[in-house]
């Protein structure tokens, strides 16, 4: 816990007297507002370089939801000098989508970058409509639909890379869930960089080493307005339960989340991706031409289920 009156670690080293407002136990750092902002942006920059995500010459597309992670990331990327535009997917979830779209649009105007919008109602159907006919949890169906349109639109719009705001807590929760069920196919693909191949555009996660709290603090310190309430479909989501469990572990043993995630990337991910492992062949969906493991991709099947016409060719 940060004791009142603690001096900022960086200020202290420079003989300055600024008080810390943030304590990062896993880094043993107490920071003032200004040095926390610098620390966060440096961490993003270092992660981009460490995993060779993209360069300042690349035209990148940030998946923007209106939440703290995507907006903080977009803000940091622009401040760091990257050419980052945004893509907002309007999920059609009542007030939640209306508010998050407005927030995203106004943030795009603030940083003077283009925000592309995909409206699911026009493309396939809203998430509430999809949820009533899909046989899987809302968040899972929503994730598949978002990934599909992110990939498709980024290619159509000529971007080289999709950048998402998944943070360390998100990655730990997913890794934990996949480990609980030993879902090897998912574990094999859990890496902060997914290279461009077989019709999939390059996808990267520059916040994979920053926590959800760090991202929220950065948003507050940078005066970023973000959607503060939760998507109504996320109530009871397993990812929230896992995050609460991990928060307890982290509190008892600071650094556990980073250790679990980075240990996986360094020690387990390479084992799972050795060349002699069988990989399921990727085809092209016969309807929309997007990558698919089957003749017809999941999204086109969903469209058929929703009694809509097959995807536009």
């Amino acid at each position, binding site marked *: 816990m940060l004791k009142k009156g*603690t001096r900022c670690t960086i200020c202290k080293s420079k003989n300055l007297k600024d008080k810390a407002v943030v304590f990062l136990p896993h880094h043993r750092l107490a920071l003032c507002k200004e040095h926390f902002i610098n620390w966060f942006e440096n961490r993003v920059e270092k992660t981009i370089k460490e995993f060779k995500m993209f360069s300042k010459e690349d035209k990148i597309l940030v998946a923007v939801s209106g939440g703290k992670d995507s907006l903080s990331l977009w803000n940091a990327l622009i401040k760091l000098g990257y050419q980052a535009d945004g893509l907002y997917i309007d999920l059609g979830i009542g007030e939640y989508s209306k508010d998050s779209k407005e927030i995203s649009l106004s943030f795009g105007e603030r940083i003077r970058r283009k925000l592309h919008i995909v409206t699911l109602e026009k493309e396939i159907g809203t998430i509430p409509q999809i949820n009533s006919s899909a046989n899987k949890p809302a968040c899972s169906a*929503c994730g598949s639909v978002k990934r599909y349109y992110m990939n498709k639109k980024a290619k159509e719009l000529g971007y080289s890379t999709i950048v998402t705001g998944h943070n360390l807590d998100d990655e730990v929760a997913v890794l934990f869930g996949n480990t609980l069920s030993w879902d090897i196919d998912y574990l094999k693909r859990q890496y902060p960089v997914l290279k461009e191949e077989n019709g999939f555009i390059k996808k990267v996660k520059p916040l994979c080493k920053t926590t*959800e709290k760090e991202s929220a603090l950065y948003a507050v310190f940078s005066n970023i307005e973000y959607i503060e309430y939760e998507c109504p479909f996320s109530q009871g989501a397993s990812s929230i339960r896992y995050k609460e469990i991990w928060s307890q572990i982290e509190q008892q043993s600071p650094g556990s989340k980073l250790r679990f995630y980075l240990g996986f990337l360094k020690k387990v991910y390479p084992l799972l991706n050795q060349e002699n492992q069988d990989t399921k062949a990727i085809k092209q969906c016969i309807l929309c031409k997007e990558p698919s493991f089957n003749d017809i991709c999941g999204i086109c099947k969903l469209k058929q289920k929703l009694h809509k016409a097959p995807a536009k060719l």
Partner: protein
Amino acid sequence: MKLKVKYRGKFYELDINKEKVTALDILKALNLSSEYAFVVKNGEVVPEEELINETDDIKVVNAISGG
């Protein structure tokens, strides 16, 4: 002490049975941990030990989001 706090876009009234209330008391009253949540007092992020008055403008940020 009775306090009005903004949490996840809505206002709540907390009744904390203490004369001196800290930011940490507010987090506890909302059943939140400082591992993922923090208090913003009059527009500034404050340490858990910070004393809170009834007249302060209080916002609680819970960083956990799901889905």
